[in-house]
C-alpha cells in the first residue's frame, strides 16, 4: 500500500471536505456547485500554466474562479430567491460549459513543472502538500474564530437570530459560499497537478465521495467543538482514501466500489442521525440532511 500517496491525496481532499463543512455543515447550505468548482479549479490552472503563466499566479486565479462560482450560487439563492439545491444545480450546469470554454477542449495534460513537481522527489511533493494543507487549515481556523465566523455559523443554524441582531444573513451565505468554493477550486487545482491532467470529468462523483469522507470524519472525530470539526476534515479525507485504496487492494471490483461508497454513506448518515441512543447529537453545525 502506498501510504504516502494516500496521505497526499488525503490532504488534497481534506481541502474539499473543509469547503463542504463550511457550506453543508456550518451554513446548512447543501451546495451542489462544488462538483463544478472542483473541475473549474483544475481547468483554470491547466490552461494558465500551459500558456506560460507563473504556477503560483495560476493557482491564485483558479481559487478566484471557484469563488466566482460560489458567488453565483449564493446570489441566485439570496437575490433571485431560488431554492438552495436548485441554485447549485443551475451553477453546476453552467460551469460545465464554462469549464469547456476555459480549457478549449475536454482534457489538458499538465506537462510543465508546477508547484508540486518542482523537485521530482516523492518527499518534496508530500512536503509541499503538507505546507499548503497546514496553512489553509490555520487560515480557516482563524476565520471561523472571528466574530464574522461566529455569525456565519449562526446563519446556518438560526437565520432569524442573525436577522434579530440587525445583520443581514445574506452577507454570510455569500461570503461562506465564496470561501467554500475557493477551497474546493484549490483542491481541484492541486488534484489536477497531482494526477497530471485536467479533465472535464474530474468532478464526477466527487460530491458523494467527499460527503462520505466528511461523514466518516465526523463519526471518528465527534465534532463537538470548532477545532474538532476542522480536524474531522483531514481525518475523514485520509480515512476515506485509506478505505478506498484498501478495498481496491483487497480485490474489490471498482464497479462495486460505488455501491460500497453508497452503503457506507447511508450507514454513516443513519448512525449520525439515530446513533446517539435517542439523545440529541453533540455535534456542532446545522443539519443539512
Amino acid at each position, binding site marked *: 500500500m502506498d501510504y504516502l500517496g494516500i496521505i497526499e491525496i488525503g490532504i488534497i481532499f481534506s481541502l474539499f471536505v473543509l469547503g463542504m463543512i463550511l457550506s453543508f455543515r456550518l451554513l446548512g447550505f447543501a451546495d451542489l456547485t462544488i462538483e463544478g468548482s472542483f473541475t473549474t479549479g483544475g481547468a483554470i490552472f491547466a490552461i494558465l500554466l500551459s500558456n506560460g503563466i507563473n504556477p503560483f499566479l495560476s493557482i491564485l486565479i483558479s481559487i478566484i474562479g471557484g469563488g466566482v462560482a460560489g458567488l453565483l450560487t449564493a446570489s441566485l439563492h439570496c437575490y433571485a430567491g431560488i431554492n438552495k439545491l436548485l441554485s447549485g444545480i443551475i451553477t453546476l450546469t453552467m460551469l460545465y460549459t464554462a469549464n469547456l470554454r476555459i480549457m478549449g477542449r475536454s482534457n489538458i495534460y499538465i506537462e510543465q513543472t508546477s508547484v508540486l513537481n518542482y523537485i521530482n522527489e516523492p518527499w518534496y511533493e508530500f512536503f509541499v502538500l503538507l505546507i499548503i494543507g497546514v496553512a489553509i487549515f490555520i487560515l480557516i481556523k*482563524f476565520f471561523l*474564530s*472571528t*466574530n*464574522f465566523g*461566529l*455569525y456565519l*455559523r*449562526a446563519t446556518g*443554524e*438560526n437565520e*432569524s*437570530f442573525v*436577522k*434579530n*441582531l*440587525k*445583520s443581514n444573513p445574506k*452577507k*454570510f451565505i455569500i461570503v461562506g459560499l465564496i470561501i467554500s468554493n475557493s477551497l474546493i477550486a484549490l483542491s481541484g487545482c492541486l488534484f489536477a497537478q497531482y494526477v497530471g491532467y485536467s479533465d472535464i470529468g474530474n468532478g464526477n462523483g466527487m460530491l458523494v465521495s467527499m460527503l462520505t469522507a466528511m461523514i466518516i470524519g465526523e463519526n471518528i472525530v465527534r465534532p*463537538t467543538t470548532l477545532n474538532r470539526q476542522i480536524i474531522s476534515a483531514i481525518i475523514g479525507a485520509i480515512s476515506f482514501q485509506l478505505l478506498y485504496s484498501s478495498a481496491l487492494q483487497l480485490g474489490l471490483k471498482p464497479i462495486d466500489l460505488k455501491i460500497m461508497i453508497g452503503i457506507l454513506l447511508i450507514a454513516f448518515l443513519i448512525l449520525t442521525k439515530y446513533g446517539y441512543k435517542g439523545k*440529541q447529537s*453533540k*455535534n*456542532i*453545525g446545522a443539519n443539512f440532511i
Partner: protein
Amino acid sequence: MLELKNIHISFNKNTDNKIDALYNVNLEFHEHQWSYIIGGNGSGKSTLLKIINKELIPDKGELKFNSYKPTDVMFIDQTTIKNLVPSMTIYENLIFALKNIGMNPNFRLFQNKNYKEIVIDKLKEFNIGLEKRINEQVKFLSGGEQQIIVASRIMLSNPRILLMDEFTSSLDQKWAPFILEKLKKFITVNNIMVIAVTHDYSQIQNIGDRLIMLKNGKVFADKKKENFDFTTQSILNLFYEYE
C-alpha cells in the same frame, strides 16, 4: 418616545377571508416603562411587536422612532431556543450580545480574556453556577437555564427598546419570577423601554407599569399602574367587560 400613528395592516388581502390584523392603532411608548400587551388569540399582539421590530411593514400609518435607531431594538421570541444558536456554547452565544465587540460581524477573534470575564461576571449574578459551564452547548441546558442565557443576552447587549413575545411562557413557576425580577431590576436601572406580550397575568402585577388590551386589531383598553389595579382578578374583569 416611540410613536405608532394610525397603523393599519391586514393579511390575505386579495382573498375573501381578509383579516384586519391591526386597525387604526395609535400608541405612544415611553422610556422607563414596562408595557404589557394582552388580548385573545388573533387580536394582533404579535403583529404589533413585529411592526416595531420592522419585520412587517404596515399598510398605512407611521412608526416614529424619534431619537431611537432601529438597531436599538431587541426582539425576544416566545420559543426560548430561537433566541439562541443551539449548538454553540454559552460563551459563544453571549459573545453576540457584547456591545461594540460582538454586535457587529468583524474580524476580531472572539476568544479573549476580557470578554470571558464580562460573560462570567454576568452569569455569576444569577448565582446558579452557569459561569462554570460556559463551554457547554446551550441545546443541552434545561429550559430555565436557557432562559437565563437569554436574559444574560438582554443584559449584556443592553438595548434601548426590548420587545418580548411571551418571554416566560415556557417556564415553570420556579424560574419565571426569578428571571423576571432580575430583568426588572436591570431594566429600571438602565432606563429601557419594554413592550411585552403575555398570557401570564400573574406577572403583570409585580412587573408591569402599563397594560394595553387589544381586541380584533383595535386598542380596547390602555391602563396605567397609577389608575388601575393590576391584579389577575381585575384583568379578568376587564376581559369580561370586553365580552
